[in-house]
Structures are given as structure tokens and as C-alpha cells.
């Protein structure tokens, strides 16, 4: 089936919905559709808990400039600084826009939006923690997703739900549309569009322990990589310090923002030794490493340096009121999944793979770069976690992803709409869906007995153990070899479910192949970065090396090889300094 549209947005999380909403405000653009593999309200933005950062200064003095600086420093100076300024400046109006559209933020005594502390957010360039995170209990993402979906309903945005992106049509340097698979019928649909905006979210599913939903398989970046387009800074993957032991379910940093304390087996507040000023509110990469170091030193609760040991997140001094009013969902997760009550018992936590700082390289208007020289792919845009602006650099600060979604989702939506208003449809070939068709046929015709769950498990173990919190050259080289073998095996994957309708096995397999491609790119990018910066911590190169590595990685896939190039970082405002908290 074919559709002719002005703009097609792929993904209905916070970024996709904000972009669609903003595009729908442009009266010159007629047909906007959102294509999403999940129903919009099922998107993983709904899982975000802690809050969204904006220097409203509702409780104490705050400035966007401080927010931008914290973002740059938190990202270990790999952040493009002018982009960080835009992020911090426009966060303020974007948060007000959400509030005006009904978002039920918690309130201060004066009836303003309430704000809480969050990791790495400080006053006056690092003096002390500041209240910057605007929140709605511990369901901020849920409220953002609901609010944006409601506004899209109001603006009558069209949705194609449970449609999986399989291909992006690019001819030379121009994007002409996409091909998607309709889960309900098994048919392929070609969306011929003047412009395409990808907002497909994260890819944490490549790791064994993760806070990410099943759907977070990086399909957007993977489909572009498969066509040889570069992905930026993929070696930087954030491990959040506090996932529920064994399950990876996230315990928001907001818990520590409200006063929660990390303790080892001796009951010691070990962060005093790692980050004396910010303590439990130091940036995530530092705390994740601190926890792992404690465990390796036999200071985990089980005192077992091997295996999946954990530490305690102590909330017992916070009181029932704070836990049940400000952190109700967290309290319930502990009760449901661990059978413990955080009012009286500390929460068992361990780091969990959480957020990809890297992704599809874009400018500050969401336009996709096709190379390190800054060549734009006409008509192709990206926003949200799948994109890399780059405002998170080597390590994202808590609350900054939601800001990224609404600031750059909005900007991308507005620029994609103005582009489409002045553009013509580019002709597409009659058989535009051939490549997508072939991907499906390949899976239906193979008769091997390679099992996808075996490959998936091996990929997730390999990435967790070889390209995880602490890395070294040898382990990464092994991981690269293993991932290459898995990609080879995956060529023989077959799907035994032969039904056309609701064939979830077929889509699971597509997602696995996408993750394998992104795993390879991640591992090779990491292997080649011979320094430690932000979330990328190497045992064999423990120091940051600005002379050689203050630069963004651009990695592109060429069959089984990954080609690496580098691009300079915008450091036009603050000179890189050692990062201490």
C-alpha cells in the first residue's frame, strides 16, 4: 500500500509526539502522520520517573547558564556547548508550554511548579546542588507522554499504530519516505513523504541488565546504519547506578534527590570517598563506577566480588510521607517486585544499562548529518534518544533527556514543517519496498536451526561483560569478535511462525538484527577510543586525553566492518577542565 504525505514522524514517544504537535501547528503543512510500532501511550517515555530540568528558579536562584555549564561538565566536555545553551535556555519555555497544556506538576506552597535536586545539577558552576528538576511525583515521563498525546488528539494528528519501520528511502542525499510493516495485516506500506523525522528512542536492549523496555531496540539508527550512514558517539552508553537488583527496573535518582543514601555492606556512605561535595548526587557514571568498585572490593551486600552483587539504597530515614507522596511508584515497585517496604528496609540496587548518549548525528534543528563535514541529508530529521545533537556528550545528566525531547523534538518538528511547506515530493521507484520485502523473505526462507533467543542472550551478555561499566582493550576486542560471529549466525535466522497477521516473532527477529548492528558499532567505537571520558571508562587508559580524543566519533557500517571518523567538539564557551565534584 502507498501513502502520500507531507511529513512522516516515526515514533510516538516524547520526541515524536512533540515534533508532530509542533509540525501540526504549521498551517501550511497538510498531511502529517505518526508511524509507531507501539500505541503512542505505550512508548518508553512513559517510564521516565524523576523529572525534567529547567532553571525556573522557583525555590532558589537558578540560571539557564548554570544548567548549560552543568550539562557540559556532566558530559565530560564532549558536549557541543552552543547546543547545550539552547537546551538550557529553551527548557524554561518548553516546561511552561507543557504546564499550559495540562501537565500536572507537583506544586510549591505558592502554587508554582515544584523542583527537586538531581545528580550533577548545581548552582553557580558547581558550588552546591540546586533544585532544578520539575516533577510530577515519580511519573514525570508518564505525564509528559499523556499530555502530548492528548494535545495530538486535540490537533487531530493521524496515527499509524503498530507499524514497524523497516526502511528509510534515501536517494543520493535526499530522503523520500519510509517503508513500514503493518503488524495487523503483515502488509508493507510505503510512505512517500517530503520529509521524514525519526524519533525511535533508545537501544538499551543490547545489554543484559537494563531499565529499557522490550521495544527499545534502536530501529531508527540501525536502519540508517544499514545504508552506510554514520552514527555519532555510540561508545557512550550510560549505566544508571540504581536499578532494582537482578531486574534492572529503574529506581529514579529522585530518590537520592529527596535524600536517599547509598551504603555498602558495612553500612558506610561510600560516596563520601568518591565525590565529597555532591556525594550521592554526583553524576551517574561516577556513582555507577563507585558501586562497581565497592562490589569488586568485596564491599557489596553479599561480599561476593564475582557474580551479581549489589549495594543498598537507604530510604528508611525519609519517612512515609515523602515516599508515598513524592515517590509512590518507586515505593510500589519495591513492594511488588522485591517484597520489601522502602519505608523500613533499604532497597537492593545495582547499575542498569539506561541511556544511549550517541545516535543519529543532527544539527540543532534536527537535520541529519551524512558525514563529518556537515553535509545534510535533505528531508531527513531525527530527535530524542535516537539522535545525537550532542547535548549529552560522554555522560547525560539526569532530567536532561526529557529536556532534550521537548526542546529538540519541538525544534525538529518546527523545522521539518517549514521544510515540507516549501518542498516537493521526490519521485520514488515503483518497487520502493523491495529492500524491506527482501528482509522479510530472507527470514521466511531460511531453514537453519539458529535460535534467536540464544543469539539475543549471547549478545546481551557479551555487551554487558565486554563493553559495560569498566572496559579494556582485550575484552572489547573479544566482544567485537563475538558480535561479528553472532551477526554471521543471524544471517541464517528463520521465523517459524508463517502467519501473516500479528506475527510478533518476525518483528522480534528484525529487532534483534538491528541490535546486533548497533552492538558492533558501539563496541568498535569504544575499542578505538583510547581514553576514559564520562561513561566510557577504560582500565587500560584511565585518564581523559583531550589532546587526542576531544572529538566526536562518527562510525559507519560497511558490511562486517565499521569505519571510524572523527569530528571536532564545540568548546566555544567553556574551556575543558578536569571533572571533579
Amino acid at each position: 500500500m502507498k501513502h502520500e504525505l507531507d511529513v512522516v514522524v516515526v515514533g510516538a514517544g516524547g520526541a515524536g509526539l512533540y515534533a508532530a504537535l509542533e509540525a501540526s501547528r504549521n498551517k501550511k503543512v497538510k498531511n502529517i502522520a505518526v508511524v509507531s510500532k507501539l500505541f503512542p501511550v505505550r512508548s518508553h517515555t512513559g517510564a521516565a520517573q524523576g523529572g525534567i530540568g529547567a532553571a525556573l528558579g522557583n525555590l532558589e536562584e537558578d540560571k539557564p547558564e548554570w544548567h548549560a555549564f552543568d550539562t557540559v561538565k556532566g558530559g565530560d566536555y564532549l558536549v557541543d556547548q552552543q547546543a547545550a545553551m539552547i537546551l538550557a535556555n529553551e527548557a524554561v519555555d518548553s516546561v511552561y508550554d507543557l504546564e499550559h497544556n495540562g501537565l500536572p506538576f507537583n506544586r510549591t506552597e505558592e502554587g508554582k511548579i515544584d523542583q527537586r535536586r538531581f545528580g550533577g545539577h548545581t548552582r553557580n558552576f558547581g558550588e552546591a546542588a540546586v533544585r532544578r528538576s520539575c516533577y510530577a511525583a515519580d511519573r514525570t515521563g508518564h505525564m509528559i507522554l499523556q499530555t502530548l498525546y492528548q494535545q495530538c488528539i486535540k490537533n487531530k494528528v493521524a496515527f499509524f499504530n503498530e507499524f514497524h519501520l523497516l526502511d528509510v528511502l534515501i536517494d543520493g542525499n535526499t530522503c523520500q519516505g519510509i517503508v513500514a510493516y503493518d503488524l495487523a495485516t503483515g502488509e508493507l506500506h510505503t510512505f512517500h513523504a517530503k520529509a521524514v523525522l525519526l524519533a525511535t528512542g533508545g537501544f538499551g536492549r543490547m545489554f543484559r541488565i537494563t531499565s529499557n523496555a522490550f521495544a527499545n531496540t534502536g530501529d531508527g539508527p540501525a536502519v540508517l546504519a544499514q545504508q552506510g550512514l554514520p552514527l555519532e558517539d555510540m561508545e557512550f552508553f550510560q549505566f544508571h547506578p540504581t536499578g532494582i537488583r537482578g531486574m534492572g527496573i529503574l529506581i529514579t535518582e529522585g530518590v537520592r534527590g529527596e535524600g536517599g543514601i547509598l551504603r555498602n555492606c558495612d553500612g558506610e556512605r561510600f560516596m563520601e570517598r568518591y565525590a565529597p561535595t555532591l556525594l550521592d548526587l554526583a553524576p551517574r557514571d561516577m556513582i555507577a563506577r563507585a558501586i562497581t568498585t565497592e562490589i569488586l572490593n568485596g564491599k557489596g551486600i553479599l561480599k561476593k566480588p564475582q557474580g551479581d552483587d549489589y549495594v543498598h539504597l537507604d530510604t528508611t530515614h525519609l519517612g512515609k510521607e515523602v515516599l508515598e507522596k513524592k515517590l509512590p511508584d518507586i515505593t510500589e515497585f519495591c513492594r511488588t517486585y522485591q517484597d520489601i517496604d522502602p519505608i523500613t528496609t533499604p532497597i537492593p540496587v545495582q547499575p542498569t544499562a539506561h541511556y544511549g548518549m550517541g545516535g543519529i548525528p543532527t544539527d540543532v534543528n534536527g537535520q541529519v548529518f551524512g558525514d563529518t563535514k556537515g553535509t545534510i541529508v535533505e528531508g531527513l530529521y531525527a530527535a530524542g534518544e535516537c539522535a545525537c545533537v550532542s547535548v549529552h556528550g560522554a555522560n547525560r545528566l539526569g532530567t536532561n533527556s526529557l529536556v532534550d525531547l521537548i526542546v529538540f523534538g519541538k525544534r525538529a518538528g518546527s523545522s521539518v514543517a517549514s521544510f515540507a511547506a516549501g518542498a516537493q515530493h521526490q519521485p520514488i521507484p515503483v518497487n520502493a519496498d523491495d529492500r524491506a520485502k527482501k528482509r522479510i523473505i530472507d527470514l521466511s526462507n531460511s531453514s537453519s536451526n539458529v535460535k534467536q533467543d540464544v543469539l539475543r542472550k549471547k549478545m546481551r551478555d557479551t555487551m554487558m561483560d565486554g563493553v559495560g561499566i569498566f572496559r579494556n582493550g582485550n575484552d572489547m576486542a573479544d566482544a567485537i569478535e563475538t558480535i561479528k560471529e553472532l551477526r554471521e549466525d543471524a544471517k541464517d535466522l528463520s521465523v517459524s511462525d508463517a502467519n501473516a497477521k500479528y506475527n510478533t516473532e518476525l518483528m522480534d527477529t528484525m529487532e534483534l538484527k538491528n541490535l546486533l548492528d548497533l552492538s558492533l558499532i558501539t563496541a568498535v567505537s569504544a575499542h578505538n577510543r583510547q581514553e576514559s571520558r564520562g561513561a566510557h571508562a577504560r582500565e587500560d587508559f584511565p585518564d581523559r586525553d583531550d589532546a587526542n580524543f576531544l572529538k566526536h566519533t562518527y562510525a559507519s557500517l560497511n558490511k562486517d566492518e565499521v569505519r571510524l571518523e572523527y569530528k571536532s567538539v564545540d568548546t566555544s564557551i567553556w574551556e575543558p577542565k578536569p571533572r571533579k565534584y
Partner: protein
Amino acid sequence: MRIVVSIKRYNPEKKPQAYTQEFSLDVKPTDRVLDVLVSIKENQDSSLTFRKSCAHGVCGSDAMIINGQERLACKTLVKDVAQVDNDRIEVEPLRSMPIQRDLAVDQGVFFDNYRKIDPFLRPKEKPPKEEYRQSQKEREQFEDPTKCILCSACYSSCPVIEAGEKKFVGPAASAQAARFAFDTRDVGIAGRLEELDTPDGVAACDNHFNCTKVCPRGIKITKNINTLKKSIKKHKES
């Protein structure tokens, strides 16, 4: 422990009637029922169809009937529904919505009903430069229904919907109507009377309380409906 999972299956492409199939497998008491379904799909029958995403009760993908009651598969642990070896867990798709395949149902009507109540803020004043002022207490008046994840468990449990004798937008849509009507920033009941005061709105609820019992987000749906009913009445009398 070893359990038996009996699943109601339906795949119209293959067989016009629904049937029940049993799977036997080893599980941990702390596994989620969703983990059990994933394990069956991976190891025993890859054609088993169900929706899933977040796996911790916040996205609303996997509401289904487990041992006779609407629940989220990812928020139900094995030990909640099976205690000893060879205990059976019965899994069926939600009621009152057409089955698409196995445990996946068509929530089209459910979402249409949601859209009917105009589920978006209709501000009573032009926005100020900063935020609208609202006290924490005013916020608490409509907080409860904002937790809704649109999973449609309540819709499936509702006897009024199931009987189908009168039209009813259903519990979730009604709770969302209350969410906006009681938001101090919204035009409220006065501005929404036309959509609220209809025979298929809150008026159709007979107070069975099933929805409140099954809601995985613990929303006091019936209470919200009754408060809205009273407020509509009061508004019309004044």
C-alpha cells in the same frame, strides 16, 4: 517450581475457533507472569502472541485475564497466582473487545471512547507568561486519575459494558473526564457539560466497583465517577 499454564488461544488465520492449550515449565516464584509467557514463546511455541513493552507496569501493554481476574502480566508474580508444584495458571485475553490473536485484543473502541470525552485541557484562561498557579491541594483533587495507563483492564471488567444493553464510554474514559473536569486550570464541568452529561457518560455507571478492584494503578475509578455524577447534578441545580 513447575507449573502448568493454560492459555486461551485464537488465531483466525489458522482455525476459526478459540481453543485452550497447556504448557508445562519450570519457573521461579518471583518470575513475572510476563516472563513466563516470554519463556513459552522462546522455548515452546514461537507463535504465541501477546503485547509487551515496559515489563514493570507502566505502559499498559499486557493487561489480560489471569486466573479469572484482569491483571497486568508484568505486575503479577508467579507466587501471586500459583503456590505449589503443578499449580495451574489460567491466562485469557480481555473481555468485551474483539480478539486479534491469542492474548492480543482490539482496543479500538476503548480508545474511541477515550477520545469522546475530549481528553485534553481546555484552559479557562489564556496562559500567563510563567505557569498557571495551582495549589498542591487543588492538584491532589485530580491526581488519582492522572495515573491511568489506558490498559483497558477496567473496561474488560465492567458488567455494564459486557451486558451491552446501554451505551457507556466505560470506566477509564469516565475517570479521565473527571481528571479534566476537576482541574482548576480547565473550563471544568460548566464548560464540558455537553460531553459529560450524556446517557453514555458517567450516568451509565451502575456502581459495580469491578473496575476499581482490577485497576493495576489503584485508581479509585468508581469514586471518581460518583464524585463527577454528584458535581454534574449540583451544577445543573445551581
